[in-house]
Each structure stands twice: as structure tokens, then as C-alpha cells.
């Protein structure tokens, strides 16, 4: 029973265009959502987060949108750059400060930025 789903294993986007990565969740107790970027053989690095009281959070080229009624969030990267090529993980938690729940991750989406 996967509580966080990233249904696209891979996504190919042309450099300079918008990349949209999607994530769905099933657990209505999740209140805090995060996106991580991961290069091969490295630990994930935090990108951006959003709490359930918001529907949008923006940080530079990265924007996360949350549709709580649909239990759906998306990460927009504009404009896409070659260095954005990586695996992106969506994660969710019921506790923004950490706590015993940890994070529940999706399986990841491999974003490939083409020149």
C-alpha cells in the first residue's frame, strides 16, 4: 500500500522549458510535503517544502503546488537547466518537525533535461 505515489518513473524535458513533476498521496493525515533531488550515489538534498495550510510555495526556479482536496502536489521547475537532471522524490509527513513518523517517500521520477 503505497501512500505516496509518483506515477511517472521518468520525464524528459527540453532545456529552458518547464518541468512538471507530479505526486499523489492517499493518507489524509499528511500535513507536510517535501521535494528532494538525488544524484546517483549521493544522499537526497532538500529542494522545497509546503505545509497543508498553503497551496503554493515558491523558491527561485522551483514552485510546489498543493491541491489538498485532490491529494495531489506538483513541482514546477522553470526554466529547466541541464543540472536539474536527477531523480526527484516526493515525500510526506504528518509532523513537520521530524518526530517518529519519518518521511514517506514516493518511488521517484528521473528527470532528464535535454539540450
Amino acid at each position: 500500500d503505497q501512500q505516496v505515489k509518483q506515477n511517472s518513473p521518468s520525464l524528459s524535458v527540453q532545456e529552458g522549458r518547464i518541468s512538471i513533476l507530479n505526486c499523489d498521496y492517499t493518507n489524509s493525515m499528511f500535513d507536510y510535503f517535501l521535494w528532494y533531488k538525488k544524484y546517483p550515489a549521493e544522499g537526497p538534498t532538500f529542494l522545497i517544502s509546503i505545509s497543508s495550510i498553503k497551496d503554493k510555495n515558491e523558491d527561485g526556479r522551483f514552485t510546489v503546488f498543493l491541491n489538498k482536496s485532490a491529494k495531489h502536489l506538483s513541482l514546477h521547475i522553470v526554466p529547466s537547466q541541464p543540472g536539474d537532471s536527477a531523480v526527484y522524490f516526493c515525500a510526506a509527513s504528518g509532523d513537520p518537525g521530524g518526530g517518529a513518523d519519518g518521511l514517506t517517500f514516493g518511488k521517484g521520477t528521473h528527470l532528464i533535461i535535454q539540450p
Partner: protein
Amino acid sequence: SQTIHQWPATLVQPVGSPLSLECTVEGTSNPNLYWYRQAAGRGLQLLFYSVGIGQISSEVPQNLSASRPQDRQFILSSKKLLLSDSGFYLCAWSGWEGMYGYTFGSGTRLTVV
């Protein structure tokens, strides 16, 4: 600033051999500590979490164990490795330091042969 160290980076171990992966955190006190595993074709799965010294909780039954002998030290162990223990292991910490989010270590690639 807070930093997290995890070692070794890569490890090749025979089936049946023991395992010990170590993780230490600097620059914070009383962090929540976690061990995650990324198996091939899968997302990151939470294995263990710890909210304090000697306090370990396991998310899934497995061939692994964890210990927290000191506030900022978290160890992942196994007495006898299985082939299915192969994967990428990540240590992480979280806590209220005026910011949200989890910080991950650089990971250990474990191959059991």
C-alpha cells in the same frame, strides 16, 4: 551549522558476514535520527528511527538492527547479511532548529555477494 557524516561510502560484503554502518551528526543536540534504504527500482523506505539515546523503533521486520549509543551517533547493523540486504542506505536527521526538513547523509552503497 549542522552536518551529518555517514561511512563507508561503498561496501561489498559476502552473504553471512556482519555489517556495521555508522552515522554521526554535528552541530545539533537531541536530533531525531533515521535509517532509510533505497532498493533498486524503489523509493526510500524508512527502516529505523530514534528519538533519543537507546530509543530505537523499527518500521519493517528485517535482518537489520539499529543502535544509538550516543546522542549524535546512529549505527545500522546486521549479524548475518542476506543478498536482499543489498541497497543504498541513508542516514538522516531532523529536528527543530528553526527550519523544517530532513538532512541526509551521503549514503552507503552496500552490495552483498
